């Protein structure tokens, strides 16, 4: 029994537990451990805040009288659009679309919370700013009788506090909204909590991206890593090089992201405290670039003759670097984030090897037969180009592995499944910041409760000094697009990505899978009620099943 929750909620949870206990599973042989569904003393909070004390004292919330307001001391006011739209969003999440419930109920029966006061404590509210990796993300808030304070130092974090607040609201047995007196002090364990979506292997309509940004906010993700182009298609519409998408997209009109689309995605994300980091992966993974940009890619040869096929970006031509300079100048203006992801993974050397011009260039530069040196040559020039746009850069781990000289603020993304601990150790020993995605490739699906596998990862379990561990700034869940498009992306992503979200947000000692299962089951139902088709964890039901389709 959880005394911290109203008894109405407690009975509801017990009913849920009783039903599911009987659901024994058969017909299945492969099978992960299935926890018993019960109730968590933390209700449905996800990800779990750093410090939370839920008291048994409950208050009413009435949609007719409840308001979210700016406190008098706050540096933000009604002119802060990011907060105003968040107020409306969370009001709707909490009260749904049933308005004026209990409009004529007598007041004073129960203590009632009528106001949520929002207080931005820092002098600059940053209402119009774009979130950055260095944002101060600690905050605390507590529930009191009659009104409630949120104390924050920074606007995007306040959005996350609203999310937590909305997660504390529950329905009692009569359908009335309630919240318990609760004290929360919260801050994320890692600053970079990212999600990678791939819009090249399949085109993802903007609507799907926006819906997943909504879901990310519900899970306190703060980085959308947009793997926007790749071999298969080039859906990014460039204003400087319009041929790239005209010829490289699956379709030049229906399967592209126009500048307006991109702006919309960025603004939609900003309103939810989410950064958008674009990835333009080179020199490999660039087949689609070649269609709209002549001579960008290396001609592959068979013996003395070109085969007609193309390899990675041609690193020996000045025209390549002129193009990259112009292109990344545009990208740096379109995407306001201080980081750009430059890719650099999986460069296939066979085409370079086959090309006589490249062979000659290698000899000239004394690279001998070491194509890693050629790759480094390219990347270093590219990094200088991007560096001149005043952006920081992120790269996949191969660039580091190949010994390319990197700026000290470079972030290395560790993605290779084998020995990622060792890689983290090496990258941080060299003094670079790093983000981990290797254990969180969500496109690999298996039967059963694989969320547990993602949940049990400990990102800092590698050998290293405290200083090294501090260099791990976060992690990313990756959903690559080979088998994923709008039809299956959302249910495949959620709530599996929620498991990663808690690992990146909550305290290191939050490792109880059973407790996580109880909270996550309710969290997934909450996402479903908010219109996100998050798939079930196991047998059971939600009060409100998915209404779409």
């Amino acid at each position, binding site marked *: 029994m959880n005394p911290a929750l109203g008894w109405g909620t407690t009975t509801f949870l017990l009913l849920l537990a009783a039903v599911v206990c009987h659901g024994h599973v058969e017909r299945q042989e492969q099978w992960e451990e299935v926890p018993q569904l019960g109730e968590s003393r933390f209700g449905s909070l996800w990800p779990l805040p750093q410090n939370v004390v839920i008291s048994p004292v409950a208050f009413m919330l009435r949609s007719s009288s409840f308001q979210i307001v700016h406190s008098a001391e706050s540096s933000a006011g009604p002119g802060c659009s990011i907060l105003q739209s968040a107020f409306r969003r969370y009001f709707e999440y909490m009260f749904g679309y049933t308005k004026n419930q209990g409009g004529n109920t007598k007041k004073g029966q129960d203590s009632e919370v009528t106001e949520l006061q929002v207080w931005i404590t820092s002098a600059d509210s940053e209402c119009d700013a774009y979130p950055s990796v260095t944002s101060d993300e600690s905050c605390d808030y507590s529930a009191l009788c009659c009104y409630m304070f949120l104390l924050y130092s920074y606007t995007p974090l306040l959005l996350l506090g609203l999310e937590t607040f909305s997660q504390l609201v529950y329905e009692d047995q009569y359908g009335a909204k309630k919240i318990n007196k609760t004290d929360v002090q919260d801050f994320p364990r890692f600053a970079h909590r990212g999600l990678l979506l791939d819009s090249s292997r399949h085109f993802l309509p903007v609507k799907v991206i926006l819906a997943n940004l909504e879901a990310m906010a519900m899970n306190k993700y703060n980085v959308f890593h947009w793997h926007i182009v790749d071999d298969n298609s080039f859906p990014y519409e460039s204003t400087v090089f319009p041929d790239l998408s005209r010829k490289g997209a699956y379709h030049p009109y229906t399967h592209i992201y126009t500048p307006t689309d991109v702006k919309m995605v960025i603004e939609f994300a900003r309103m939810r405290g989410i950064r958008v980091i674009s990835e333009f992966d080179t020199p490999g993974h660039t087949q689609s670039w070649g269609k709209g940009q002549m001579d960008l890619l290396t001609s592959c040869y068979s013996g003395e003759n070109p085969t007609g096929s193309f390899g990675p970006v041609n690193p020996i031509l000045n025209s390549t670097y002129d193009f990259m300079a112009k292109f990344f100048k545009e990208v740096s203006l379109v995407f306001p984030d201080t980081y750009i992801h430059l890719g650099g993974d999986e460069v296939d050397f066979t085409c370079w090897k086959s090309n006589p011009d490249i062979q000659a260039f290698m000899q000239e530069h004394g690279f001998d037969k070491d194509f890693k040196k050629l790759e480094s040559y390219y990347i270093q020039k590219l990094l200088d180009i991007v560096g001149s746009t005043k952006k920081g850069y992120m790269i996949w781990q191969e660039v580091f592995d190949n010994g390319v000289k990197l700026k000290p603020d470079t972030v290395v993304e560790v993605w290779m499944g084998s020995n990622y601990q060792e890689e983290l150790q090496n990258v941080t020993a060299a003094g670079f910041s790093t983000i981990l995605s290797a254990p969180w490739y969500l496109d690999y699906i298996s039967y059963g409760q694989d969320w547990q596998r993602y949940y049990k990862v400990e990102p800092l379990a590698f050998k290293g000094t405290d200083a090294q561990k501090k260099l791990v700034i976060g992690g990313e869940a990756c959903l690559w697009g080979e088998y994923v498009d*709008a*039809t299956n992306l959302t249910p495949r992503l959620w709530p599996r990505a929620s498991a990663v979200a808690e690992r990146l947000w909550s305290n290191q000692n939050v490792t109880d899978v059973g407790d996580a299962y109880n909270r996550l089951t309710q969290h997934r139902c909450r996402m479903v009620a908010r219109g996100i088709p998050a798939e079930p964890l196991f047998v059971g039901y939600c009060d409100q099943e998915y209404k779409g389709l």
Partner: protein
Amino acid sequence: THTHWILFMFLLTLQRVAPGGEAGVWPMPRKMSEGSERYALHPQGFSFRYGRDSSAQLGCSVLDAAFRRYFALCFPENTVETDRLSVSAGHGELTANTVWGALRGESHFRDLIIRLSRNLFLKIEDFPRFQYRGILLDTSRHFLPVRTILKTLDVMAYNKFNVLHWHVVDDPSFPYQSQSFPDLSNKGAFHPQSHVYTQADIRKMVSHARLRGIRIIPEFDSPGHTQSWGKGQPGLLTPCYKGLHPSGTFGPVNPTLSTNYNFMGRLLKEVSTLFPDPYIHLGGDEVDFSCWKSNPDVRMFMKKMGFGTDYGKLGSLYFKNMMNIIETLNKTSVVWQDVFDYHSSPKSLDVVEVWKAGCYMCEVRRVTAAGVRVILASPWYLDQPGPTHEWSRFYTVRPLAFTGTEHQKRLLIGGEVCLWGEYVDGTNLAPLLWPRASAAAERLWSDEAQTSSVSQAYPRLAAFRCKLLRRGVQAQPLFVGHCKHEYEDL
């Protein structure tokens, strides 16, 4: 007798257009000849008509509804043509023994819309390989909203599936709302109002399915898999014992009480009137004998009946009684293979569904050798893990590759795709089902020799999947690529 020919014609306004339309005929018809010329169809000039000599005429509910449905599918948005080039009129005709054949032929006509043959006549020569082409949906482990089921029926029709095997109830919940025993869902459903199927819901589903040529076979699985039944029907389940005392938990249906057979009789009578199909699925899988063994009353009964310690005999007795009930209802019963395996006179069974992994062909051989009809499900368990690129796994099944006589092969009446519900609800059902179930659909419909190549099937299935997207079906991609019209919802 095959004299009930149905004939109807469709009038076309034909216009020569450039070749290069999408392929995507799925499942592959028996005979399909394609001319090199392409013709356009105009919504203003096109209509479905009943042939003069057809035994079906205006007022045939199934075809009237199908005409409207397929007209809408042929012309998704009513495009107005302003300038027409060399227009000529033509017509096609479709002949079938029954309306059901017409429906599936029509499904093909939709597929062949830009591929009329040279002489402007479209002749469908097609027939299914197996008469039973089913999909199992499980509404007990998760509740599936009625809308989700109706939508699935639509897509089943596009794939020429003709049976929905509805695993209505099971251990976790009892969503079937019974008129005679309302407590079953009042107490056994996840929620007594929002998570139940009312009689009206079921009538709507049955009618929706009928108009698409789909049978609905309900499964009321017993004596195991019945935990949810026990909540609303006291005395139905066997109390398990720990030593001399009841442990408070319950096992399978108590087979020793005649009151339980009375209950089953009344429930199945209600079910048999609600579901017009001649088949009822009685389940019978995975009966755990340990609870029966623990119960002193059951042990006493075993002794009285002279069953010794063979609890299979008790299971047999239960099924003999259940089959008697089904017989009085004039229905045919389907059971899971477990019943065949433990039954003392397996030859008395009507239809056996083979579901276990391992050597399923061995089981098919045994069951058909006993002269009993078989539905094969083992190779089409969609919820089982496997490589992501796995539709080919469901495609390369060879259902008749067991050693047996011609007669035995004829006893394999078809197959079934099973999507069990442990991890499936309305949020993810459609992409998990389609187009993987389409792979099985072709195996069950088409000629195996013509459709043995995965690489040849791949582009056709990819095009068919795009066609499904165009019809608003949330069918997941086979691999990297795109469709002209992507899925736009969530």
